[in-house]
């Protein structure tokens, strides 16, 4: 297997998505990740539990985070944080870098994919 640096791998993949939910809802996070992977094959989708989330965020450096919890701090490079509650009656909250916040009262996969698509359309940083 050809060894790749993290930076070269990032250049090949258009959008990195991390789906993070508590281990009690492993099925949710793995299904959401799998669904995004099927419908948006150009994305790199990983999953993580909430324990050690900060470590995974630093390691994977995702541009989009789908999480059952709200964002605790803004990080450069992280473009969108989607708070997707496990309680279906609570709204999905989408926080974009720069502070723009939107809510979706009836969260759908389509709305989630729109976030990924929005990031995908952003101009990519030029390589060295």
């Amino acid at each position, binding site marked *: 297997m050809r060894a790749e640096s993290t930076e070269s791998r990032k250049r090949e993949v258009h959008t990195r998505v991390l789906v993070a939910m508590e*281990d*009690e*809802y*492993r*099925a*949710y996070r*793995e*299904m*959401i*990740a*799998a*669904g*995004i992977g*099927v*419908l948006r094959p150009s994305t790199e989708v990983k999953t993580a539990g909430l324990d050690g989330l900060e470590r995974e965020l630093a390691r994977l450096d995702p541009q989009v985070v789908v999480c059952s919890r709200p964002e605790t701090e803004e990080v450069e490079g992280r473009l969108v944080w989607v708070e*997707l509650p*496990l309680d*279906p009656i609570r709204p*999905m909250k989408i926080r974009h870098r720069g502070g723009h916040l939107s809510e979706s009262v*009836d*969260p*759908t*996969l389509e709305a*989630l*994919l729109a976030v990924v698509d929005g990031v995908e359309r952003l101009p990519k940083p030029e390589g060295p």
Partner: protein
Amino acid sequence: MSDTTKDGRTGSSARTADAAVGPEEEAVWTKRVLLVDDHGVFREVLGIVLEHHAGFGEIFHAGSLAEARQTLGERNGDFNLAVVDLDLPDEEGFELLSELRADTPSVPVVGVTASTDQELRARALAAGAGEVLTTTASGEEIVATARRFVGSA
């Protein structure tokens, strides 16, 4: 992405017989599953995964007991599998289990719950669930369970 029809159906139902599939694949191809869960995103991705990784041909969605009843009525209960959220409000998941066992006993049901309470699991199995999965299950386990029940339908 598969389009959603007016009756809430997604999947490969519009595919023609021109698709090159073997006999085993064709048998799985026409399998219909009813997904009942009030978490819309989870229900949608579950359908996508079951279609693409478990070979289900038609996926039907319901977000409540009422929607499930409507879909079951429209399809005359003609499903190969039902996946039911046992945590639906007002015990609707268990009510649906009872109705499925009474009206469509040939349809295997997999219950899904966030609870690890063994009494709840026993209650669901007694009510007609063929298997109960918790939300701690992996994606592979869910797909494998669905395929196992479809194979026995």
